[in-house]
């Protein structure tokens, strides 16, 4: 309230920074709102799929093939239904309800995304932390493995791996995690390396903490803001890669309603029934945008340096 405080912007070194900080703050808030909305919708769809979805997402009806969304459906007689809104977003080339598949697709997206991110983060954090904390030959060995891993073309490797492991939900999750753990390992290693040299680690050492307890209690919490951001990005990446694998017809089969599956299928009938592809593409893009926005915003809020 005091005018002295309102001038505090003068403290910012150089004038240009002040406007920037303000806009970053407001953009971050905007991002947070958008991210929360998108992820909230995704989570609600995922959690309550059985209650929200109007139909069984795998139930086909060969009499309802390629029915347009309700507001465009002007030939109810042909399809033999009374209420177009029973299939609000239309049906696909097997007569399955697009809306229901979209909702169950959200569920699978969350399962794939979160499992991959957890697995990749777990592997990456453990290896990255070991490498960063102990250094020496452990660091050398782990860094070498990361180097080798980063030298594989990811799409090609995932296609080969899925060909090897089969096309189930589990194998897709494993494949994406196997390919992407290096992202976490690299970041965590660099950060731990930096933290290790700080005074408070020595302080903890002096008070007799074991390596593990120091790592868990002192080092990792400081790495956490970056991890949270990475985690959100990774979920988006996992969902995208699943789509890619579906796209080359290598992903989850058994009629499971994944967005990738819907896109791959919709592409074949795009001129006939654009809605089969358009809705999952929209859902995918909004989800990734939401995740990225959330990751950016969280980094801003969690990182004391950036926030200042």
């Amino acid at each position, binding site marked *: 309230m005091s005018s002295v405080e309102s001038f505090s912007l003068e403290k910012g070194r*150089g*004038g240009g920074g002040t406007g920037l900080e303000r806009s970053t703050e407001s953009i971050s808030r905007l991002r947070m709102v958008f991210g929360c909305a998108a992820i909230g919708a995704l989570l609600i769809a995922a959690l309550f799929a059985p209650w929200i979805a109007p139909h069984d997402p795998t139930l086909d009806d060969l009499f309802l093939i390629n029915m347009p969304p309700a507001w465009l459906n002007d030939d109810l007689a042909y399809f033999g239904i009374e209420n177009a809104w029973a299939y609000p977003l239309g049906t696909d080339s097997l007569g399955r309800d697009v809306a229901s598949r979209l909702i169950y697709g959200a569920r699978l997206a969350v399962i794939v995304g979160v499992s991959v991110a957890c697995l990749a983060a777990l592997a990456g954090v453990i290896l990255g932390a070991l490498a960063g904390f102990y250094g020496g030959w452990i660091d050398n060995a782990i860094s070498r493995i990361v*180097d080798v891993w980063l*030298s*594989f073309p*990811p799409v090609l490797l995932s296609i080969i791996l899925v060909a090897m492991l089969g096309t189930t939900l589990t194998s897709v999750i494993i494949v994406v995690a196997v390919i992407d753990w290096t992202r976490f390992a690299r970041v965590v290693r660099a950060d731990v390396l930096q933290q290790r040299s700080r005074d408070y680690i020595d302080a903890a050492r002096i008070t007799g903490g074991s390596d593990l307890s120091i790592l868990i209690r002192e080092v990792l919490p400081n790495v956490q803001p970056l991890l949270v951001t990475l985690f959100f990005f990774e979920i988006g990446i996992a969902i995208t890669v699943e789509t890619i694998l579906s796209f080359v017809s290598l992903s989850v089969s058994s009629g499971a309603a994944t967005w990738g599956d819907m896109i791959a299928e919709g592409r074949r009938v795009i001129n006939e029934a654009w809605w089969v592809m358009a809705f999952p593409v929209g859902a995918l*893009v909004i989800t990734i945008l939401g995740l*990225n926005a959330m990751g950016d915003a969280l980094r801003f809020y969690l990182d004391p340096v950036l926030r200042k």
Partner: protein
Amino acid sequence: MARLLVTIGSIFLTLLGVSVVIFVILRLVPGDPISMMLPPGATDEVRANLERLYGLDKSIPAQYVIWLRNVAWLDFGMSTQFRLPVMEIILDRLPATLELVLLASLIALVLSFAFSILAVWLQVDSATLAIDGLAGLAQAIPDFLWALIFILAVTLFAPMMPVSGRFDPRTAQDFATNFYLLESLVTLRFEAFAELIRYAVLPALALGLPLAAGITRVLKGALEEAMAQDYVMLAQTKGKSRLAIVLGEALRNAMIPTIALTSVQLTFLIGGTVLIERQFSWPGIGSTAISAVINRDLPLIQGIVLVFALIFILINLASNELYRAADPRLRTSR
């Protein structure tokens, strides 16, 4: 000199690791080239005979040792699919991929630099927001979806744009190399160049857009940060215009973090050629890779993976050197 040796040594070590991993993975994949060749009615004997012929009857380590020994003499084996030396196929296809990647990177650089500089120069909230939004969208849509969108858009709105191949096979020219684009440019055949660009622009755009978005995010942030520095204010007092300051003062500093982050993104772009080439029927190494996987052409997959790995490693090295060169603080303290 010592540094060079260490670098070369570590490249070889990494490639060796890559080769071991891919070799083992490939032999665990169900389905093998022999099964692909067997016709209706072939007997087990025929199968055994073919396995012997392609050296697949030995143990995995033994196969690896044989393969490695040949690779030492730059013999990557014969493609079971094309019945030509792997090396020859790769050398034949690589130029198409490299040209695509080059064009895509060029597009990405031009777009990202133009937009970042524009945003920072204009300093208008609505423009900044619009550019941020565009970049976010471009990044959220993966390259293969862009390709899909482009192909659909072309059939709907611009049927004169080609969506497959490198050039129209009905109209072709004499090329001494497989670098058609570069060669037509160097030999000043501009009509041919324009025609080749027409074929390359959509796949390059699909590949380049996500990269452009990635670079824009980094570069714009770095530019904004640089513009908040005192030396920018000082430059203002020297009477420089805002554009001159963005270009003359901020850009150089903003380049440093941009280079570091772009190399990672560039490897994603190159990895993306695997899908994009297939979608646009681009006769490069990426589409060859997919057909090699589908047909279980093991020697070819191994060769291609190694080439990708080598390219990735070289890009990382190059970006490290570039990073050093761009930052005077590193240059002198080396």
